[in-house]
């Protein structure tokens, strides 16, 4: 990996996902929430705090052989709302997604309230409305409690 003229040069991947414009320092967290660790069988390229024209500094992650689920992109939108997700097929960008924090999320994180029915043994999944995007605040559809950014950073 090398750097010249503010351009990042990393080996291109044949098939997989490139997550670009990640807020600087968040790349490792992103790998963690995507469940990618040392056992991942394919190439993963990681660049932290590289120059960016739009963001001054950014992180970039390239993951071969990985397609993100809608739940993955939801989680990404909360941690790295500025990021773009590029789907790579045969070395080419087949689709570019701009992340957007959704209005509602399900089965995403556990409710902060231990007495919430979504934490009990019931045939439902956790469900939250986004009441504020900046600062990030979610509201449990079941017990109405608020999940703040501090809690979400710890849990996501």
């Amino acid at each position: 990996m090398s750097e010249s003229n503010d351009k990042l040069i990393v080996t291109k991947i044949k098939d997989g996902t490139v997550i670009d414009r990640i807020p600087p320092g968040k790349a490792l967290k992103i790998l963690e929430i995507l469940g990618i660790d040392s056992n991942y069988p394919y190439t993963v390229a990681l660049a932290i705090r590289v120059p960016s024209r739009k963001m001054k500094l950014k992180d970039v992650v390239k993951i071969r052989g990985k397609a993100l689920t809608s739940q993955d992109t939801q989680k990404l939108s909360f941690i790295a709302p500025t990021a773009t997700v590029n789907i790579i097929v045969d070395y080419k960008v087949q689709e570019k997604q701009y992340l957007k924090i959704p209005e509602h999320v399900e089965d995403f994180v556990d409710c902060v309230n231990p007495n919430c029915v979504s934490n009990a043994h019931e045939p439902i999944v956790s469900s939250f409305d986004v009441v504020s995007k900046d600062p990030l605040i979610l509201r449990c559809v079941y017990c109405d409690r608020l999940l703040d950014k501090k809690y979400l950073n710890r849990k996501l």
Partner: protein
Amino acid sequence: MIPKHLFSTRTISKDFVEQIFSLASKIEANPDQFADKCKGKILASLFFEPSTRTRLSFESAMLRLGGQILGFTDAKVSSTVKGESIADTLRMINHYSDIAVIRHYIEGVGEIAKKFASIPVISGGTGSQEHPTQALLDLYSIKKEFKGIDNLSIGVMGDLLYGRTIPSLLFALAKYDNIDLHLIAPPALKLRKNVALRLKENGFKFNTEENLKDIIPDLDVLYMTRIQKERFPDPVDYERLKGVYQISTEDIKNVKDRFIILHPLPRVDEIDYAIDKTKHSRYFEQAHNGVWIRMALILKYLGLD
């Protein structure tokens, strides 16, 4: 429009609340006229947490309407000890009764009812979340006293954090105009953020205080609550805060002539027994109103009004 179930005063309209008050008032004036209204109907009374007034007044309400009741008063005698979910309990109750009242320490049961109950289910108290029927009888008591709810000065004091009657009371009051609301609590027991946010979204303004003394001469109503011992994660905190707000006859020397004290009961030591005999106490009348309100709710939810 009548919501299918009743778990919150936030999601019901003022019009619906007023319809309940109007029906309760008719029943109170002439209970015999309603004695057979629920003949052949069954109320399931599912109390997963202890209760005196709520359970007895719901059961009394159904019996006074000529209906019957089934249920349990202790979660230990139900199949929840075998690990049965609330969803499965409600699926079963759908076939055993026509209407149900449920009290549970788990919060968010209302959403489970929406998904799994085909009969109307009314909350008899849900954890620290809400206690909507209590709020309706509280407002009914206020309305009876002052012939209306608008323009009153109301103080709400005590455990605003864990008391489940509080969110329901505030969401119900928020439907009325020009309420001068004062919330009086120590910082450790102040209103939960989610409740404050809901009120803010609704444009309902309130003042927060730590001291009753300065504002009591202006109040029409003082709503007291018990410090909720059973909901404190740490018993040390409870010991520190219990008895933090107690009122005696000394504290009500400079109140308005029409000033009243309400309390959802049970009380521990927050209202001195000597206050019971003063013209300002209304908490026992308030508890009696629970039967009329619950009769009205049963009729309304069964479509028999």
